[in-house]
């Protein structure tokens, strides 16, 4: 074994050659660019297939665990806390409460959006407390959104619905 620790205060030096995006574009450094064509087909499984079918019918479906009593939304086939199968299907309301929200100015690729989107975690009425659901808010000014605001789902027309979370266009403030 090599012996003796060098007396250095760390890090004494750091290596690495910084380059700019332009250096690549202008060919100052050599590189290889790869655009693979990768596709996936993701099965929804038992619980979510039924949930998506419910959305098409304009219903929000949940499942219940009789052991802990939780009504879980979105539904699942097993209770992850009790680790046992769920006991029954039930319907929850299409109204809820904003738990938290954000006003997003960027798209998934971090590019600026023309119009900001308001995204929220909504506790849906009829499900157990804190069964949050992430979705978009609409028909409201970003400055008027607050935590605790009551909201209601705005559905696409029956013919437009295709069994996707986007069958709900957005959630709007519940008047009164």
């Amino acid at each position, binding site marked *: 074994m090599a012996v003796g620790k060098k007396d250095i205060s760390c890090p004494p030096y750091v290596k690495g050659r910084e380059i700019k995006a332009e250096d690549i574009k202008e060919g100052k450094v050599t590189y*290889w660019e*790869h655009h693979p064509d990768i*596709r996936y087909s993701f099965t929804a499984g038992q619980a979510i*297939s039924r949930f998506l079918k419910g959305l098409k019918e304009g219903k929000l479906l949940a499942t219940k665990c009789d052991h802990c009593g939780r009504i879980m939304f979105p539904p699942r086939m097993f209770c992850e806390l009790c680790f046992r199968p769920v006991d029954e299907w039930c319907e929850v309301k299409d109204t809820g409460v904003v738990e938290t929200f954000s006003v997003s100015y960027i798209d998934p690729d971090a590019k600026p959006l023309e119009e900001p989107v308001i995204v929220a975690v909504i506790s849906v009425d009829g499900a157990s407390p804190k069964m949050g659901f992430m979705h978009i808010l609409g028909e409201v000014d970003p400055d008027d959104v607050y935590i605790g605001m009551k909201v209601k789902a705005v559905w696409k027309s029956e013919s437009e619905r295709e069994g996707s979370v986007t069958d709900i266009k957005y959630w709007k403030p519940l008047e009164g």
Partner: protein
Amino acid sequence: MVFNEKIVDAGELKHIEGKIELYWIYTSGEAGDRFFKALKDEGKFLAAKCTCCGKTYFPPRIYCEYDFSETEFVEISGEGCVRAFAVATLDNNEESLKNPEIYAIIDMDGTDGCIIHLLGEMDAEDIRVGMKVKPVLKSKEEREGRITDILYFKPV
């Protein structure tokens, strides 16, 4: 119990299709940059020799992976010997290739390393393991500093 009320009609089960819309730009790194620039600008082949154990890496690296010493660049001829070869009749997507491609592992002269590349200007029946080959490069104007600047290797 819900667990037993499974959906059995396959038409009722949903799936979602999607595409991974990412692409990657890989810089060739400190050693790779030297290697590809020498290939592009001068048509030369570089390898890297460990300053401690003398092992010569091809393609070059800035370090020796066994004793973690620095390396120094050395010029090599680019010629080598076929260690193994394969005749590809299908492409990446398992479609038939009109002209089968011959791929080989080529042990590079003067190094402990090798390269995987195409063989050209020969028939598959004529290739032997141990055969001497040399690289055929694109013309200087066409070269981009990539592995495809080498068109193929042909018999010496």
